[in-house]
């Protein structure tokens, strides 16, 4: 893949090298994927359904067994580390599905986000409810009874609670209403600007590519295209295969 990655590259935060990973024996879902996120970068990953985007994030986060290749965070290999160890290293993750604790209240969900540093709760809560004001009013409601979009907000907030230095987001905007989507993207961008290296998987591909520094297109477990957000956004091939024309006609 990209020749830009070199050993001299000192501010690489997350590096995925020739990764192979999968669930079922004998079937690799990720087939030699490569990815680099430098300090403070906002990386977007797009691709068709079933391409392995979520699997890639899960492998970085230690939730899928890595079969080959390497993953480093801050220069150290994290292959084989369990999720809670990665959290200790400041990596936060919002999964695509099942991303809240249904029987816990919103407040408790958020507390879980801060499991390793309970003292900072009040401060972080303020930050998070600043983004999703709805949640602040319903802290006592059980997450299991929330609407789809509300869940998504809780999921995002939970990951933001811990003030991570690397943030992995799997389709954070799915199910959010248009205003909330824009909000979410802008927030992600803000957070990223504040120094949080962010890797975001999105099917809301245009929006994602608009704000990200660099983007990857993942197809069949390997990166098919790579470039700055703009390059991809305008690449006719990418448009034809992955972005579609619906959002582009600007009705």
């Amino acid at each position, binding site marked *: 893949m990209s020749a830009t990655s070199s050993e001299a590259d000192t501010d690489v935060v997350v590096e995925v090298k020739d990764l192979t990973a999968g669930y079922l024996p004998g079937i690799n879902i990720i087939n030699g994927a490569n990815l680099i996120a430098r300090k403070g970068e906002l990386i977007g990953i797009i691709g068709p359904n079933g391409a392995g985007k979520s699997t890639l994030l899960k492998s970085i986060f230690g939730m899928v067994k890595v079969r080959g290749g390497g993953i480093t965070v801050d220069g150290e290999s994290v292959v084989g580390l369990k999720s809670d160890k990665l959290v200790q290293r400041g990596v936060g993750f919002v999964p695509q599905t099942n991303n809240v604790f249904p029987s816990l209240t919103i407040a408790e969900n958020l507390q879980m986000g801060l499991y390793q540093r309970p003292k900072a709760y009040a401060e972080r809560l303020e930050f998070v409810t600043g983004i999703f004001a709805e949640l602040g009013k319903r802290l006592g409601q059980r997450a299991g*009874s929330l609407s789809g979009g509300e869940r998504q907000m809780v999921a995002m907030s939970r990951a933001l609670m811990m003030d991570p230095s690397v943030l992995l987001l799997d389709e954070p905007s799915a199910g959010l209403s248009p205003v909330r989507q824009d909000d979410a993207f802008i927030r992600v961008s803000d957070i990223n600007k504040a120094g949080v290296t962010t890797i975001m998987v999105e099917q809301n591909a245009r929006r994602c590519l608009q704000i990200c520094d660099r983007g990857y297109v993942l197809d069949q477990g390997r990166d098919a295209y790579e470039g700055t957000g703009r390059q991809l956004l305008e690449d006719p091939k990418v448009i034809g295969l992955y972005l579609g024309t619906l959002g582009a006609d600007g009705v």
Partner: protein
Amino acid sequence: MRRPKTQGLAKGDAVPGVAKNDPVLVIDNVTRRFGGLTAVDVEHLEIPRHAITALIGPNGAGKTTLFNLLCGFDKPNSGTWSFDGTSLSGIPSFKVARMGQVRTFQLTKALSLLTVLENMKLGATGQKGESLWASIIPAIWRKQDDEIEDKAMELLARFKLDATADDYAASLSGGQRKLLEMARALMSDPTLVMLDEPMAGVNPALTESLLDHILDLKDLGMTVLFVEHDMHMVRHIADWVVVMAEGRVVAEGPPETVMQDKAVIDAYLGSHQDVDLGVVTGRIAGELGESGEELLEEIKEAEEASIAEAEEETK
């Protein structure tokens, strides 16, 4: 390439609760409360037949809850509704589905340890082999089953799931599950199909081709009611849009009109659909434009408001 929208659905002006010329679903005074929260409070709503209706509204507006009520998955505190002229209140969910009103779930319900194909075949209605006695004798149901399988494979191909037909549904990715959920609902040739955010998480390129399929279905006489947050899609295929907020129907009408509605824009759409977020966030240089500035303004305001609120609470 764009197909014409069905026109003349309503009997009068496009106001909330307007009567339709040929309603398939009529809802009256349906309310559902959870403790102190009124999640659904719909006075009157008609869904036009042979048309595609979009149900939009902010998160937590009560859209999914309304779906649950209409399909018998939840019991309302009050209200009546009828489908095709038959009252549905108190009818158990499976009967509702048999009558031709089929739904999908926003949080997908893939039948994990069934293969994708089996998931699909389960969707077909009127299967002879589903009665216990007939099931013992394959001769009774074999032929029908083969037909169902053919149909399922066809749909799967359209939804780009044919390669996974023999995999367990549990092994599908998030987006693939959404697709399966929708494809499965279509197996039953419903009169009215109710889709809860069918395209959330689906790749935009695929979405586009699927929309064509939905339009085909309409041409075949099916009625579609769907919830969606993707305005491009709504604009593209919806003949009619119903907007819900805080449980009520606050607006309805053809997409073009509704999306110009100030209240709808304020509460839901935001006026910045076409703003380039890259510019707004200052990541790339470019014309911010009027609406872009507005957007920034709004966000700042909202933030200040919530901070103020939080401060008040802490005091």
